């Protein structure tokens, strides 16, 4: 609703070059229906109390338990963000949260080099230590997201419609064509930090980038069946909400920091893939799966 009311952000990168090279003759205009972006139900919950967090510490490691050096860590709520800090060579970082924050989440990883994950705070105390958390390294090489083509990274497959396009804020690290390519990796269940799924009972989690990219229209999604579930097993796909904001409907597809179902699907006949059939992916964010 919000995007409908506001209009979409004007800096759009189309998955095709949109005739940007003036020397290239334009092909004949085709009478195709322009792709529409899903409006999203829009969520906002303003009754959360503000939390005074003070000093927040965490150690970030990659899946092989090596320190995730120079990983971005920040604390952001729906109303206030704290300037990002970066882990040291041991993966340690401390963030000083100076202002009371509504529905704060610890966000770690930059959604480019590392997967970016968010954990909502459940306490209100100075000196919160999240201990050690893990994030997957994302593939160095991304897969361009092109209309009508499968983009595959880390076993995650997105397929944009033939007339589809992608919309994304053009800030670093997404200010280059390479930055806007699909990157994905699984966070194994054994590496889930406490509180990551916020009670959603997720069994699989995949970190995707470029985070926040709107897929217009919503895209087909397949994930690797890394759990080895039987063909035909019914599953539900959930999206982690990372849109902050306090305006009505600002949190487009899921409440901030929480996981919202976006559709159902099943393990395919080969047993290799989880295929989202009853729904589609409206925005690139972290995706969780649970069996029905």
């Amino acid at each position, binding site marked *: 609703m919000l995007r409908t009311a506001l209009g979409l952000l004007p800096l759009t990168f189309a998955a095709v070059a949109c005739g940007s090279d003036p020397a290239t003759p334009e092909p004949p205009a085709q009478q195709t229906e322009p792709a529409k972006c899903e409006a999203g139900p829009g969520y906002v919950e303003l009754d959360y109390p503000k939390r005074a967090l003070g000093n927040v510490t965490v150690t970030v490691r990659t899946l092989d338990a090596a320190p995730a050096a120079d990983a971005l860590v920040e604390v*952001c709520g729906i109303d206030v963000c704290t300037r990002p800090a970066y882990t040291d060579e041991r993966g340690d970082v401390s963030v000083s949260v100076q202002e009371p924050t509504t529905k704060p989440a610890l966000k770690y990883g930059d959604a480019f080099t590392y997967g970016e994950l968010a954990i909502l705070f459940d306490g209100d105390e100075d000196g919160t230590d999240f201990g050690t958390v893990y994030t997957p390294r994302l593939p160095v090489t991304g897969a361009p997201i092109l209309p009508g083509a499968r983009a595959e990274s880390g076993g995650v497959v997105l397929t944009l419609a033939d007339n589809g396009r992608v919309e994304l804020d053009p800030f670093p690290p997404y200010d280059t064509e390479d930055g806007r390519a699909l990157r994905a990796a699984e966070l194994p269940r054994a590496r889930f930090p406490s509180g990551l799924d916020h009670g959603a009972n997720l069994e699989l989690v995949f970190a995707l980038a470029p985070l926040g990219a709107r897929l217009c229209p919503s895209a087909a999604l397949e994930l690797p069946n890394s759990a080895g579930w039987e063909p035909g097993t019914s599953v539900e796909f959930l999206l982690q909400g990372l849109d902050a904001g306090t305006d009505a409907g600002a949190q487009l597809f899921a409440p901030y920091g929480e996981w919202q179902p976006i559709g159902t699907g099943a393990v395919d006949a080969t047993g290799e893939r989880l295929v989202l059939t009853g729904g589609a992916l409206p925005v690139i964010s972290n995706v969780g799966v649970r069996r029905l």
Partner: protein
Amino acid sequence: MSHGAPALLALLLGACGTNRPEIPPELLKDPSAPTGCATADYPAGPYGDSADTVAIDRCFQGWRAPGKTAHTAAALQDISLGNFYDPDGSHYEILLLNTAAVWCAVCKTEHQTLPEHYAEYSPRGLAIVSALFQNSAGKPAELSDLKTWVEAYDVPFPMVLDPDYQLQDYASAETAPLNLVIDARSMRIMAKFIGNQSRDLWQLIDDELTRREASE
């Protein structure tokens, strides 16, 4: 009081040094304020960071009407808070001073709705100035960041660079956004919101504009 054609008025009346005479820097009421576009008749203090104190006349460089200006260094203009000081309320009733940083997801979300609020309230006397102070890495914002920002969010109100974070009197650079509501008739701070507290912020602005309209 008339608030018609606010965008044009902002262009015509807000230009630094064009609507009010310049004064030598040594005569500025706040000696710590940067020179270049201070306003001669800017209200005297007490200056402060809390309600009912006067906001210091800070001076920035930016684009007064980003939608109508080339996003180049050559097109940068001096923009000061004093440009919006309007003792008789003939053009401005309230100035909303906002901060943003590229690293701040909340700021980005806020800027998706600020143009809509500006369209609604600028005809009633609201001016908005937003100051971009840091890039995605938490370093001082540069011209390219400002350009990307105003183009990404189609910013219709004055937007400036604040790489030195002159607004540190009001909120730490570790936190964003800041929304400072200033009475344009007196430049007194009416309210300070740390963060995007949209509901309370816009209720305050609406109530205050309604109250002033009723008292005319």
